[in-house]
């Protein structure tokens, strides 16, 4: 199935997966951080590599990337990207006084961030699984803090022979506790392999 030839109904399906996934993510984040987290309407777009990098603020934007692989009925990758401020907020909420700064990513911060990545990825993967009844497993997240262009090039290179299109979901979260309200945005890249994308569509009764 070709990403470039998707019709508006098929794109709506992806949008709906994005909406449900983002809702799940807000709920999970709220539990994980023990504070209320609200979410705006997510944006769901089909973009190519260069557009993704621009949407992240340019190739040299410093970001934290968490990469997970999708296995079982659906194969592909999912990547969670967040700015340092988001990582900082999540770690300080999680670790309290134990946490100093995110400038040096030590083992504890890295593993806490991997857990955040796991929760975020699972939110979207569960949205797909619930809608389609397909079984999807996710791998342990692998983490990297570097330039956005270098991080996003990893799935772009891996899937270069298949497609250069990526499902790009932008989320705006608001952490709203008694002390302060703060806005954080994050991005999810979903790259199901093309026959897995077909499976998602057909299991929803959509002709391809």
């Amino acid at each position, binding site marked *: 199935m070709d990403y470039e030839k998707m019709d508006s109904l098929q794109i709506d399906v992806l949008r709906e997966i994005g909406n449900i996934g983002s809702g799940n993510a807000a709920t999970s984040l709220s539990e994980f951080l023990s504070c209320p987290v609200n979410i705006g309407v997510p944006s769901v777009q089909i973009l190519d590599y260069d557009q993704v990098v621009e949407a992240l603020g340019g190739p040299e934007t410093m970001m934290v990337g968490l990469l997970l692989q999708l296995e079982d009925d659906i194969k592909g990758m999912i990547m969670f990207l967040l700015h340092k401020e988001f990582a900082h907020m999540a770690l300080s909420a999680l670790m309290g006084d134990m946490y100093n700064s995110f400038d040096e990513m030590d083992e504890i911060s890295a593993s806490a961030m991997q857990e955040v990545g796991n929760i975020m990825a699972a939110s979207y993967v569960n949205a797909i699984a619930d809608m389609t009844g397909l079984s999807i497993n996710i791998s342990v997240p692998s983490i*990297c803090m*570097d*330039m956005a262009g270098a991080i996003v090039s990893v799935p772009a*290179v*891996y899937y270069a022979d298949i497609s250069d299109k990526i499902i790009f979901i932008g989320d705006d979260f608001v952490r709203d506790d008694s002390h302060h309200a703060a806005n954080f945005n994050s991005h999810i890249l979903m790259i199901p392999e093309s026959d897995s994308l077909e499976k998602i569509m057909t299991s929803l009764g959509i002709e391809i």
Partner: protein
Amino acid sequence: MSKTVTVGISDLNVVKAPDTLVTYALGSCVGICMYDPVTKVAGLSHIMLPSSSLTGSDPKQAMRFANTAIPMLLKKMESAGAQRPRIKAKIAGGAQMFSSTGNSAISNIGQRNIAAVKQALATLRIPIIADDTGKNYGRTLYLTAEDGVMRIKSVNRGEWTY
């Protein structure tokens, strides 16, 4: 006035002094700088993948692979006046951005790119005089046509030159 020309991913370009070439955020991709110091013709290629067995003539595809992009860059430099015996190369990139993905095809791609670039340059008998490849961080690469200096910039480790 000198200008800076950006080379995108799976792209290549050639400039003359006093211009500069730049390619941003190399991850597992490799940037190949080639330079003729006499005519001050500089070329830069940003490859994504090691090699293509495809024999098609689509130039957009050719710029993606080490084994097709490097000969293409050489040809473009020669048309701009560079002489092959004087051309030397400097290479950077090929990092492993994510460790332990459990997928060796992802972990090894940087190393495979580096090997393919070295092979392609050896085939053309272009010596590599600087090599800043591997490791685990992203690199932005500048090549100034005035002096052939390759400058590397990283977000976590600062800047340095070759």
